[in-house]
């Protein structure tokens, strides 16, 4: 297991390197530059700014300079938010996104899995149909529709919760977490239901039932674990995506997370900021996929990674 883990972690390095290379050159292909504005800068001042940020150098040289810089864990100055470095911005924004995303993820699991399992046990009955129809709607309503509806209801009509803004308090976090969690709850419930139905039909469950094992033990100890496998594989990329923040939810609730930097950074041609969030996202994806594989092995006795155990 240890050997496998090491191998996986080492293979992450070329993956990240490729990601950085592609992202670096792609963002620079976009027309326009970070210092373009409706008020045209005098050419000499623009040249000075470019020199200050080394944008006047040949692209390969800029690339090598950037690699050397990130090797020292320095993501560079932001080209748009002039008073901050990319490290500053990510250090300020990431905890917010991680908190929101993490809570939404937990909420989605805590509600989605039981609902899915419950529906599976009532397969093709009225309860199953209604739960799954609601889930279908949950998946189809995009969060830019759901968020304003929730604000309208809870903040403006009822006045129970704030309409936006950020603080580490339950009242400020409730609506954004709910908005993020709702489609995930629906998705997880559907996956759990599907997997559960399949597991319940399999021969080892039939054997357990034939042996006269209590239904509770069959469900919780034997059926649920393998039924969670597809949920886990969904969670890997989903966790990376949700922890890096959501552009829509951040805009609508004015949350200072890092999700908006993907879009704002690109629109502002803030090269270093875009690179910073792309690298962070890449690391999270690699990390969560690795975690998923480890959890797989733990949940399913048929999966073992190290060669000698095959």
């Amino acid at each position, binding site marked *: 297991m240890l050997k496998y883990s090491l191998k996986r972690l080492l293979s992450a390095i070329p993956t990240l390197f490729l990601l950085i290379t592609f992202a670096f050159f792609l963002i620079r292909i976009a027309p326009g530059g970070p210092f*373009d504005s409706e008020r045209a800068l005098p050419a000499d001042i623009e040249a000075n700014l470019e020199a200050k940020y080394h944008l006047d150098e040949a692209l390969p040289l800029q690339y090598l300079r950037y690699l050397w810089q990130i090797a020292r864990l320095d993501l560079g100055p932001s080209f748009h938010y002039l008073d901050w470095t990319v490290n500053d911005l990510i250090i300020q924004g990431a905890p917010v996104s991680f908190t929101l995303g993490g809570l939404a993820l937990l909420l989605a699991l805590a509600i989605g899995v039981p609902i899915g399992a419950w529906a599976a046990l009532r397969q093709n009955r009225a309860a199953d149909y209604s739960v799954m129809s609601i889930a279908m709607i949950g998946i189809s309503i995009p969060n830019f529709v759901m968020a304003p509806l929730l604000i309208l209801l809870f903040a403006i009509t009822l006045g129970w919760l704030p309409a936006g803004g950020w603080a580490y308090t339950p009242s400020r976090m409730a609506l954004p977490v709910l908005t993020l969690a709702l489609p995930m709850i629906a998705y997880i419930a559907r996956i759990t239901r599907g997997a559960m139905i399949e597991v319940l039909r399999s021969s080892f469950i039939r054997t357990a039932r034939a042996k006269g094992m209590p239904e509770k033990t069959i469900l919780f100890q034997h059926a649920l674990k393998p039924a969670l496998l597809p949920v886990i594989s969904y969670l890997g990329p989903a966790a990376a995506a949700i922890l890096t923040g959501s552009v829509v939810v951040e805009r609508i609730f004015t949350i200072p997370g890092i999700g908006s930097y993907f879009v704002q950074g690109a629109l502002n041609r803030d090269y270093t900021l875009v690179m910073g969030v792309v690298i962070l996202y890449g690391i999270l994806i690699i990390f969560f996929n690795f975690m998923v594989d480890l959890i797989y092995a733990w949940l399913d006795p048929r999966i073992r990674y190290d060669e000698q155990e095959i």
Partner: protein
Amino acid sequence: MRFLPGLLVLLLAACGGDSSEIGTPAAPRLPQPVEVALDEQGRPLPDLLADEQVVHRGNGEEPQTLDPHLAEGVPSANILRDLFEGLTTTTPDGRIVPGAAAHWDISRDGLVYTFYLDPDGRWSNGDPVTAEDFVWSWRRVVDPASGAAYGRMLAPVANAEEIFAGRLPVEELGVAALSPTSFQVRLNDPTPYFLGLLTHPTTYPVHRPSFEAHGSAHVRPGNLVSNGAFRLLDWQVRSRIELEKNAHYRAADRVIVERVVLYPFEDENTEFNRFRAGDLHWTYQVPNSQFRWLERNMAEALVVAPWFGTYFFSFNLTRPPFRDNLPLRQALNLAIDREIITERVTRFGEIPTFNLIPPGLPDYESPVPEQAAWTQEQRQAEALRLYRQSGYSEDEPLTVELRYNTSENHRKIAVAMAAMWKEVLGVRTRLINEEFRVFLQNRAQRRVTEVFRAGWIGDYQDAFTFLELFHSGHGRNDAGYDNPRFDRLLERISAERIPSRRRNLMAEAERILLADQIVLPVYVYVSKRLVDPRLRGWDDNIMDYHLSQHMYLLRERDPATSLPVTGED
């Protein structure tokens, strides 16, 4: 499936702009203030003021920087006007009055200004504000190494141009500290709007010791030392910026507001919701689609005022079909019914215009073209005549590209214009929308553009801020206008020091631009926002400057008894 119809209604309500009152409660009740009464100095009586003087203001996007010399954009400028103070400042209605300088002398030839600083001027750490601070700050602005985005604001100062270009050292800038409190500026040309320039953040002083101690981090909370009515208390990026009254400010006893909290918004609907929920006293903008609802339900909070900006389109004069084809440009200009655009599309009381320079300047009157007085039928008939004269007809229609940057408002206006050209002239228009920076680049390169959206908000209170855009050498001359007569006129305007003659020269320059039909003006911008009725002390002004130091919050009135509510908030 019984829940579906109800949900659909909600969904529809959320999607359809003006129909959003479906499922929305009745009009929100705005808090009502007590009747205001002023003392003999024009200040509100203390017992009418709310106990808590904390103003919450929406402020557009996150400011790029709080360094006054590097900043550009309205959101930064709004904050900087609260934090810092230039040699001059503005009253709520926009008049230019002494700021950090208590008074000044202007030499007879209009070239030398001597400013006498207010002896009570203090930085927020208690240091006196000195002439040396201004000398150092202005040298920093023109230093090519600092990359000051708006450095050109100081271009009228002697030698500034040469220093920008790196031909002279910064010490050669025409500024001097004659004594700790007298600051002298030498100008290249008499610049009648110079005192107005001094309200712009680029001309503000920066506290040299803090900059030298902290470098580019000198603007962070804890480091920033400023000389304005407020000081920086806290800055949470993309969440809030908190300012606190500066006890050392020279006129601190006249500032009523204790704290100002500024919130960045990336989405105007979010800001609107926060206002409706009672979290904001002042918004940066209002959602365009909510006009009807606002007019019906929040009329007393909706503030719309003319702004010093014009929304116009421009022609690329360096390529066909518009190169050397004046009648065609005139035809397209006349075929547009501005009133339909302002009344049906933008709808916030924008003022239809045929001029480039917006009205409202104290010392300038635009020459109004004769078509402005015609009926739209007359304009259309003339448009058709000119269109035929320009070589096009119903059988051989013009095909033109109309380019704008991605925005709902620009798109709606472009669609309306294309429809008008089609109906009146039979022109076929291709609408092209581009992401902002792609659009700027295409406009500047002039290789693919034909007709494109433009627009300008004046940087300082003078017609010249619009006219100079069309100098053949100006960096924003995206039309590619190159008229030596016009360029010479601009140079004469710069050198002219007699106000009436200068005014006539500027009117002549605008007349030439309009006669050459370089631009297709559509409307004069308006500023629009929601303001809590309890917030007072501000007034409409064309520059849209609203300093928090003039504002105050009134007590709330009990709607039943009309008596002040005690212990509010």
